[in-house]
Protein backbone atom coordinates (compact mmCIF):
# COMPACT_ATOMS: atom_id res chain seq x y z
CA UNK A 1 0.00 0.00 0.00
CA UNK A 2 1.52 3.31 -1.05
CA UNK A 3 1.35 6.51 0.94
CA UNK A 4 0.93 8.41 -2.31
CA UNK A 5 -2.59 7.11 -2.86
CA UNK A 6 -3.69 9.71 -0.29
CA UNK A 7 -2.49 12.39 -2.70
CA UNK A 8 -5.64 11.59 -4.67
CA UNK A 9 -8.20 14.19 -3.51
CA UNK A 10 -11.09 11.68 -3.44
CA UNK A 11 -9.04 9.21 -1.38
CA UNK A 12 -7.88 12.01 0.91
CA UNK A 13 -11.48 13.13 1.50
CA UNK A 14 -12.54 9.55 2.28
CA UNK A 15 -9.74 8.81 4.73
CA UNK A 16 -9.43 12.22 6.38
CA UNK A 17 -13.06 12.38 7.60
CA UNK A 18 -12.80 9.70 10.33
CA UNK A 19 -9.22 10.70 11.24
CA UNK A 20 -10.36 14.30 11.69
CA UNK A 21 -13.24 13.26 13.97
CA UNK A 22 -10.88 11.32 16.23
CA UNK A 23 -8.41 14.25 16.25
CA UNK A 24 -11.17 16.69 17.30
CA UNK A 25 -12.19 14.48 20.22
CA UNK A 26 -8.62 13.90 21.40
CA UNK A 27 -7.81 17.61 21.03
CA UNK A 28 -10.81 18.60 23.12
CA UNK A 29 -10.11 16.04 25.83
CA UNK A 30 -6.38 16.75 26.09
CA UNK A 31 -6.60 20.56 25.94
CA UNK A 32 -9.56 20.77 28.31
CA UNK A 33 -8.05 18.22 30.68
CA UNK A 34 -4.56 19.71 30.57
CA UNK A 35 -5.68 23.29 31.10
CA UNK A 36 -8.08 22.42 33.93
CA UNK A 37 -5.36 20.33 35.60
CA UNK A 38 -2.70 22.98 35.10
CA UNK A 39 -4.81 25.99 36.03
CA UNK A 40 -6.71 24.62 39.03
CA UNK A 41 -4.63 21.77 40.41
CA UNK A 42 -0.96 22.74 40.17
CA UNK A 43 0.86 24.90 42.74
CA UNK A 44 2.53 28.25 42.14
CA UNK A 45 6.23 28.24 41.32
CA UNK A 46 8.48 29.39 44.19
CA UNK A 47 10.06 32.06 41.93
CA UNK A 48 7.46 32.84 39.28
CA UNK A 49 4.32 32.61 41.41
CA UNK A 50 1.08 31.94 39.54
CA UNK A 51 2.53 33.12 36.21
CA UNK A 52 3.89 29.58 35.81
CA UNK A 53 0.34 28.64 34.75
CA UNK A 54 1.01 30.46 31.46
CA UNK A 55 3.40 27.61 30.57
CA UNK A 56 0.39 25.44 29.56
CA UNK A 57 -0.42 27.90 26.79
CA UNK A 58 2.97 29.31 25.88
CA UNK A 59 4.99 26.11 25.39
CA UNK A 60 2.38 24.17 23.36
CA UNK A 61 1.65 27.16 21.10
CA UNK A 62 5.38 27.78 20.55
CA UNK A 63 5.88 24.09 19.78
CA UNK A 64 3.13 24.14 17.17
CA UNK A 65 4.26 27.49 15.71
CA UNK A 66 7.56 25.88 14.74
CA UNK A 67 6.22 22.44 13.82
CA UNK A 68 3.47 23.90 11.63
CA UNK A 69 6.13 25.57 9.50
CA UNK A 70 8.15 22.34 9.36
CA UNK A 71 5.00 20.54 8.19
CA UNK A 72 4.51 23.24 5.54
CA UNK A 73 8.13 22.75 4.46
CA UNK A 74 7.67 18.98 4.06
CA UNK A 75 4.38 19.45 2.17
CA UNK A 76 6.03 22.07 -0.06
CA UNK A 77 8.93 19.72 -0.85
CA UNK A 78 6.43 17.00 -1.78
CA UNK A 79 4.72 19.51 -4.06
CA UNK A 80 8.01 20.44 -5.70
CA UNK A 81 9.13 16.84 -6.21
CA UNK A 82 5.88 14.93 -6.84
CA UNK A 83 3.48 17.76 -7.88
CA UNK A 84 0.68 16.42 -5.68
CA UNK A 85 -1.93 19.15 -5.33
CA UNK A 86 -3.18 17.90 -1.98
CA UNK A 87 0.25 18.52 -0.44
CA UNK A 88 0.30 22.12 -1.71
CA UNK A 89 -3.22 22.65 -0.37
CA UNK A 90 -2.27 21.10 2.98
CA UNK A 91 0.63 23.56 3.29
CA UNK A 92 -1.76 26.42 2.48
CA UNK A 93 -4.25 25.06 5.04
CA UNK A 94 -1.63 24.89 7.80
CA UNK A 95 -0.43 28.50 7.46
CA UNK A 96 -3.27 30.32 9.28
CA UNK A 97 -3.15 27.74 12.09
CA UNK A 98 0.60 28.21 12.43
CA UNK A 99 0.19 31.99 12.37
CA UNK A 100 -2.35 31.84 15.21
CA UNK A 101 -0.03 29.57 17.22
CA UNK A 102 2.87 31.98 16.65
CA UNK A 103 0.79 34.99 17.67
CA UNK A 104 -0.37 33.11 20.77
CA UNK A 105 3.21 32.21 21.69
CA UNK A 106 4.34 35.81 21.21
CA UNK A 107 1.43 37.24 23.20
CA UNK A 108 1.57 34.81 26.12
CA UNK A 109 5.36 35.23 26.18
CA UNK A 110 5.02 39.01 26.41
CA UNK A 111 2.37 38.78 29.14
CA UNK A 112 4.55 36.30 31.05
CA UNK A 113 7.74 38.25 30.45
CA UNK A 114 6.46 41.58 31.74
CA UNK A 115 6.19 40.62 35.44
CA UNK A 116 9.22 38.26 35.29
CA UNK A 117 11.70 40.25 33.19
CA UNK A 118 10.24 43.72 33.71
CA UNK A 119 9.59 44.18 29.99
CA UNK A 120 7.00 43.07 27.44
CA UNK A 121 9.56 42.72 24.70
CA UNK A 122 13.30 42.36 24.27
CA UNK A 123 15.25 41.91 21.04
CA UNK A 124 16.35 38.54 22.33
CA UNK A 125 17.40 35.92 19.69
CA UNK A 126 14.46 33.60 20.32
CA UNK A 127 11.86 36.37 20.57
CA UNK A 128 13.16 38.08 17.46
CA UNK A 129 13.27 34.88 15.39
CA UNK A 130 9.69 34.15 16.48
CA UNK A 131 8.57 37.61 15.37
CA UNK A 132 10.26 37.07 12.00
CA UNK A 133 8.56 33.66 11.75
CA UNK A 134 5.19 35.38 12.32
CA UNK A 135 5.96 37.86 9.53
CA UNK A 136 6.83 34.90 7.27
CA UNK A 137 3.45 33.33 8.05
CA UNK A 138 1.69 36.57 7.08
CA UNK A 139 3.77 36.84 3.92
CA UNK A 140 3.06 33.22 3.01
CA UNK A 141 -0.72 33.71 3.35
CA UNK A 142 -0.60 37.00 1.46
CA UNK A 143 1.31 35.33 -1.40
CA UNK A 144 -1.34 32.61 -1.76
CA UNK A 145 -4.01 35.31 -2.00
CA UNK A 146 -2.01 37.54 -4.34
CA UNK A 147 -1.26 35.00 -7.09
CA UNK A 148 -4.30 33.93 -9.10
CA UNK A 149 -2.74 30.93 -10.86
CA UNK A 150 -2.87 28.09 -8.32
CA UNK A 151 0.18 26.20 -9.60
CA UNK A 152 2.28 29.35 -9.68
CA UNK A 153 1.08 30.29 -6.18
CA UNK A 154 1.99 26.82 -4.94
CA UNK A 155 5.47 27.11 -6.47
CA UNK A 156 6.15 30.57 -5.04
CA UNK A 157 4.81 29.79 -1.58
CA UNK A 158 6.80 26.52 -1.53
CA UNK A 159 9.97 28.55 -2.11
CA UNK A 160 8.94 30.94 0.66
CA UNK A 161 8.35 27.97 2.97
CA UNK A 162 11.91 26.81 2.34
CA UNK A 163 13.39 30.24 3.10
CA UNK A 164 11.20 30.64 6.20
CA UNK A 165 12.26 27.26 7.55
CA UNK A 166 15.58 28.89 8.49
CA UNK A 167 13.70 31.08 10.97
CA UNK A 168 11.53 28.21 12.17
CA UNK A 169 14.67 26.27 13.07
CA UNK A 170 16.32 29.39 14.43
CA UNK A 171 13.29 29.92 16.71
CA UNK A 172 13.84 26.43 18.08
CA UNK A 173 17.60 26.54 18.51
CA UNK A 174 18.32 30.26 19.04
CA UNK A 175 18.93 29.76 22.75
CA UNK A 176 21.63 27.23 21.92
CA UNK A 177 23.35 29.41 19.30
CA UNK A 178 23.50 32.53 21.47
CA UNK A 179 24.01 32.63 25.19
CA UNK A 180 22.80 36.20 25.54
CA UNK A 181 19.11 37.01 25.75
CA UNK A 182 16.39 36.82 28.37
CA UNK A 183 14.64 33.68 27.23
CA UNK A 184 15.60 30.58 29.18
CA UNK A 185 16.42 27.22 27.60
CA UNK A 186 13.91 24.55 26.65
CA UNK A 187 11.34 23.60 29.31
CA UNK A 188 11.27 20.03 28.02
CA UNK A 189 13.93 17.85 26.50
CA UNK A 190 14.79 14.22 25.98
CA UNK A 191 17.18 14.62 28.92
CA UNK A 192 14.96 14.25 32.02
CA UNK A 193 17.34 16.41 34.07
CA UNK A 194 16.38 19.49 32.06
CA UNK A 195 12.61 19.11 32.35
CA UNK A 196 10.32 21.19 34.53
CA UNK A 197 9.22 19.60 37.82
CA UNK A 198 6.84 16.64 37.52
CA UNK A 199 3.94 18.59 39.02
CA UNK A 200 4.02 20.93 35.99
CA UNK A 201 5.37 18.34 33.52
CA UNK A 202 2.36 16.00 33.24
CA UNK A 203 -0.37 18.61 32.59
CA UNK A 204 2.04 20.31 30.19
CA UNK A 205 2.57 17.09 28.22
CA UNK A 206 -1.22 16.59 28.11
CA UNK A 207 -1.80 20.11 26.80
CA UNK A 208 0.99 19.74 24.23
CA UNK A 209 -0.62 16.53 22.97
CA UNK A 210 -3.92 18.42 22.74
CA UNK A 211 -2.35 21.14 20.61
CA UNK A 212 -0.87 18.51 18.28
CA UNK A 213 -4.30 16.89 17.85
CA UNK A 214 -5.93 20.31 17.37
CA UNK A 215 -3.39 21.14 14.67
CA UNK A 216 -4.07 17.82 12.91
CA UNK A 217 -7.85 18.36 13.08
CA UNK A 218 -7.64 21.94 11.82
CA UNK A 219 -5.23 21.16 8.99
CA UNK A 220 -7.37 18.23 7.81
CA UNK A 221 -10.52 20.36 7.96
CA UNK A 222 -8.90 23.28 6.15
CA UNK A 223 -7.34 21.00 3.51
CA UNK A 224 -10.76 19.47 2.87
CA UNK A 225 -12.11 23.02 2.49
CA UNK A 226 -9.36 23.89 0.00
CA UNK A 227 -10.07 20.74 -2.04
CA UNK A 228 -13.77 21.61 -2.16
CA UNK A 229 -12.98 25.23 -3.03
CA UNK A 230 -10.81 24.09 -5.95
CA UNK A 231 -13.53 21.77 -7.24
CA UNK A 232 -16.05 24.59 -6.90
CA UNK A 233 -13.79 26.96 -8.84
CA UNK A 234 -13.30 24.31 -11.55
CA UNK A 235 -17.06 23.75 -11.91
CA UNK A 236 -17.74 27.48 -12.05
CA UNK A 237 -15.03 27.91 -14.71
CA UNK A 238 -16.47 25.02 -16.73
CA UNK A 239 -19.92 26.62 -16.57
CA UNK A 240 -18.57 29.96 -17.78
CA UNK A 241 -16.73 28.23 -20.68
CA UNK A 242 -19.89 26.37 -21.67
Amino acid sequence: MSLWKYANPAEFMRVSAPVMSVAWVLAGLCIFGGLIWGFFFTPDDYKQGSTVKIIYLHVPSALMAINAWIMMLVASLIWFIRRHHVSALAAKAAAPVGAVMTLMALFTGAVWGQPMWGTWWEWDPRLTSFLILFVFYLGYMALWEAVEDVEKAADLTAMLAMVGSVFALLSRYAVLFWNQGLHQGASLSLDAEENVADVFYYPLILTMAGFVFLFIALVLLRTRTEIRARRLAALQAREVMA
Partner: protein
Amino acid sequence: MPDLGAYAGPVLLAYGASLVLLGGVVIWSVVRNARVKAELARQERHIDG
Protein backbone atom coordinates in the same frame (compact mmCIF):
# COMPACT_ATOMS: atom_id res chain seq x y z
CA MET B 1 -10.89 29.66 41.29
CA PRO B 2 -7.29 29.40 42.53
CA ASP B 3 -5.70 32.34 44.29
CA LEU B 4 -3.49 33.86 41.60
CA GLY B 5 -2.12 36.54 43.91
CA ALA B 6 -0.39 39.58 42.46
CA TYR B 7 -0.17 37.98 39.00
CA ALA B 8 -3.90 37.40 38.47
CA GLY B 9 -4.02 40.06 35.74
CA PRO B 10 -1.29 38.61 33.46
CA VAL B 11 -2.44 35.01 33.97
CA LEU B 12 -6.09 35.74 33.18
CA LEU B 13 -5.10 37.95 30.24
CA ALA B 14 -2.95 35.14 28.79
CA TYR B 15 -5.75 32.58 29.20
CA GLY B 16 -8.46 34.90 27.89
CA ALA B 17 -6.53 35.98 24.80
CA SER B 18 -5.42 32.41 24.03
CA LEU B 19 -8.96 31.05 24.25
CA VAL B 20 -10.16 33.83 21.94
CA LEU B 21 -7.40 33.03 19.42
CA LEU B 22 -7.96 29.26 19.54
CA GLY B 23 -11.75 29.63 19.45
CA GLY B 24 -11.43 32.13 16.62
CA VAL B 25 -9.37 29.88 14.35
CA VAL B 26 -11.64 26.89 15.05
CA ILE B 27 -14.87 28.82 14.37
CA TRP B 28 -13.41 30.49 11.27
CA SER B 29 -12.28 27.11 9.86
CA VAL B 30 -15.59 25.37 10.58
CA VAL B 31 -17.72 28.22 9.18
CA ARG B 32 -15.62 28.54 6.00
CA ASN B 33 -15.77 24.78 5.45
CA ALA B 34 -19.55 24.76 5.85
CA ARG B 35 -19.93 27.71 3.47
CA VAL B 36 -17.72 26.18 0.75
CA LYS B 37 -19.36 22.76 1.17
CA ALA B 38 -22.84 24.25 0.76
CA GLU B 39 -21.78 26.31 -2.25
CA LEU B 40 -20.19 23.25 -3.91
CA ALA B 41 -23.34 21.18 -3.31
CA ARG B 42 -25.45 23.97 -4.82
CA GLN B 43 -23.18 24.15 -7.87
CA GLU B 44 -23.23 20.36 -8.38
CA ARG B 45 -27.05 20.32 -8.15
CA HIS B 46 -27.15 23.18 -10.65
CA ILE B 47 -24.95 21.24 -13.11
CA ASP B 48 -26.89 17.99 -12.67
CA GLY B 49 -29.90 19.94 -13.74
